[in-house]
């Protein structure tokens, strides 16, 4: 699985999975911290642990199974999924950077969840609500990471490397999150989401082309060309929207 030299494809794979895992882990950690602080840590940590084990089982079961799909079909399906997912992330990040969409506010999400959990009554020792909310938070946020690990990993035959990259991100955000506790809103989530979007669209373009038997000039060095191209387009779109919105605001001003 680690065969071959370190290519641009490997670097992009590790960075994309790592950043995506960090973003999703920050969102999951906000939920776990809110549950732990309001309803006790035991059930919150149990729910999180069961979710993480379930996610790991999904990777172990589906990772090797997907590799058996014929290469051309696998590349095309994975490419299409990455293309759609990447464009969704990139679109959201562009709208947030240009001010058209509110930034993801971890503090506000934390406060809202805390008040909802407090309203649900006095916590008990084995708290079913705390377990379910923590499990769902970690599982649903982690499911996107699992899909990325499986799609990016199997397309490049590096499931183990992709899994390790995600695991490092989960541990790192977990440790840092526990230390800084409620300062998760300081994480530059949108910039990370934008970078992941650029990398996923790059990978999606590459594998969609591979699945359709396109011969890329320079082989997987083309991934870097795509990353630079899509980063430039993203920057241009953000600048264009900001300029348009400023011009509109000036026209509407009395």
């Amino acid at each position, binding site marked *: 699985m680690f065969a071959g030299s370190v290519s641009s494809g490997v670097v992009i794979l590790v960075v994309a999975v790592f950043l995506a895992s960090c973003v999703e882990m920050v969102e999951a950690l906000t939920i776990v911290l809110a549950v732990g602080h309001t309803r006790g840590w035991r059930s919150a940590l149990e729910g999180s642990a069961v979710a993480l084990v379930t996610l790991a089982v999904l990777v172990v079961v589906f990772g090797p199974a997907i590799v058996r799909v014929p290469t051309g079909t696998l590349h*095309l399906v994975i490419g*299409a*999924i990455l*293309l*759609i*997912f990447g*464009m*969704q992330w*990139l*679109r959201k990040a*562009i*709208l947030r950077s240009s001010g*058209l*969409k509110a930034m993801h506010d971890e503090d506000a999400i934390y406060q809202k969840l805390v008040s909802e959990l407090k309203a649900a009554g006095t916590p008990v020792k084995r708290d079913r609500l705390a377990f379910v909310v923590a499990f769902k938070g970690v599982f649903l946020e982690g*499911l*996107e990471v699992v*899909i990325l690990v499986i799609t990016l990993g199997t397309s490049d035959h590096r499931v183990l490397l992709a899994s390790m990259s995600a695991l490092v991100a989960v541990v790192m955000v977990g440790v840092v999150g526990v230390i800084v506790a409620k300062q998760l809103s300081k994480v530059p989530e949108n910039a990370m989401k934008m970078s992941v979007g650029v990398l996923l*669209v790059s990978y*999606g*373009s590459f594998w*969609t*082309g591979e699945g*359709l*038997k*396109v*011969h*890329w*000039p320079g082989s997987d060095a083309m991934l870097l060309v*795509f990353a630079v*191209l*899509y980063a430039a*387009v993203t920057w241009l*779109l953000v600048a264009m*929207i900001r300029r*348009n*919105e400023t011009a*509109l605001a000036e026209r509407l001003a009395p």
Partner: protein
Amino acid sequence: MSGTRSSWPVRLIKGFAMFWWDFLIGDTPELFVAALGIIGVVALLRIVLQWNGAAVVVLPLLCIGALTVSVRRAQGATRKK
């Protein structure tokens, strides 16, 4: 509502289908349609017409076009609000 609850396999299948619907389509169906269109055009260029060079250029351009249209669509929707 009658209050009848589906069996767990039905709920599991429904949940699985809902997840993929949200994951791939969600509030941006135009990106899903665009991805299918990109695959169709590139397949036509590369497999039917055997124009590899055109496919290399057209694929990223169509992705950029799809993203631009989707972002402009969101900008228009925000202005209407």
